[in-house]
């Protein structure tokens, strides 16, 4: 019932694709993080052990290239954390706890890695 009158400006859709190709699309409130969107919707593949404090690198995702220009630059803490991910770091690697959902990110697609720990 909530979804009926909430437009996509407030609830952008985020798609999470697992390493085996399973896709889940969920609506995530603006202001929440991509990690929170996964956790609140029981999306597999994101562990978020530290709860979004940029401390554990277990919410690692690969962001589809076309969305990279929309993201904030990688901060110093995130950059350090990304060096410790369990799956290899790539140029499109991000910590999903550091991606805050904005209306422009409606349709964002991220891929979860084979392992987070």
């Amino acid at each position, binding site marked *: 019932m909530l979804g009926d009158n909430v437009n996509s400006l407030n609830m952008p859709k985020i798609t999470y694709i697992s390493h085996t190709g399973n896709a889940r699309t969920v609506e995530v409130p603006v202001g929440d993080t991509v990690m929170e969107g996964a956790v609140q919707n029981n999306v597999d593949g994101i562990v978020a052990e*530290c709860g979004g404090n940029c401390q554990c690198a277990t919410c690692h995702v690969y962001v589809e290239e076309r969305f990279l220009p929309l993201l904030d630059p990688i901060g110093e803490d995130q950059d350090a954390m990304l060096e410790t991910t369990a799956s290899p770091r790539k140029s499109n690697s991000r910590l999903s706890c550091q991606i805050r959902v904005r209306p422009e990110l409606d349709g964002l697609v991220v891929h979860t890695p084979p392992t987070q720990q």
Partner: protein
Amino acid sequence: MGVIIIGGGQGGFQAAASLRAEGYEERITLIGDEPGVPYQRPPLSKGFLLGKQEQRHAELRPASFYETQRIELLTGRRATAIDRFSRRVTLDSGAKIEYDTLVLATGARNRLLPGNGVFYLRTLAEAVELRQRLRDANQVAIVGGGFIGLEIAAAARTLGKKVTVLEAQPRLMARVVAPVVSEYFREQHAAQGVEIRRNATLEDLPRGADLVIAGIGVLPNSELAIAAGLPASNGITVDEHLRTPDERIYAIGDCCECPNPFAETYVRLESVQNAVDQAASVARAITGQAKPYSAVPWFWTDQYDIHLQMAGLPFGYDQVVTRGNPESRKFSVFYFREGRLRAVDSINRAAEHLTARKLIGARSPLSPDQARDESFDLKTAL
């Protein structure tokens, strides 16, 4: 039958989640004495007090997670007794449930000051109340200059309140950090306008304070285990597999003390890392993959824009060296004992903290001179 987990905090939640992740198929019952789904405590003394974070952000998983994972979540329920012979846990409702394996994740409770009118912060309910009272307060007095007290001080100051911190010791966070770190934090709080009274007693409470909050440490919840005849001193005593002398009963997180390879003695730790890693370790043990618990301890605290991350255990250090200049607001402090690296505190240096975790885990031969020398690449000491 199956596994019963007593305690619905970070450790209890993780034990249940990790058991399913490790393929455990039997019944899992998670008993928590607070209302609502398990949540994380760290944000409560940080973003939550400032109103930056809402309750749903603190929840570890939504209610539907427990259904899909077939974790029976009993909230607002307390375990009152353990019968080890019939392998039953009695609840405050009078119900008795049977277990094959029992995990004690009973946590800790706040030490209290004598008298009334003092507020504490541990639970979500306390955080909700404190957030409101902080808004209404003019002058806040905080008893205890440890992590919790100083995080609350930072939040209260950020909200524009007059803030006084009383610390009984001659310096802040004295139990866990070196004097150079204590002094750095004292200066930062002073620069923000917090009045810090060291070597203080309760008689130093400012008369005008309309809100008094205490953060003076915790006591492990060992009573249930002791009543069941299990050993405990500073927490429930467990072996390197986090098992009590009863092979069907484990204890994890803030409530237990276990042999710690980084301290060479029994240690009870209060941290998210410890709760999560011990829970995962016990889940592996229950599913037949037991290995001694040996994770590198790490901790963090956020105060204003200062991010302090700690790796290892500094107990008994005899030498401290600083890498970087505290005036630059980015530096690390290395703790050595008998020439061996024991712990590293990093202030706004996340990369160095992560390297430190690895150095400590690898029992690196890093020397104090190398640690001090910023031209020396720490990773080469791995």
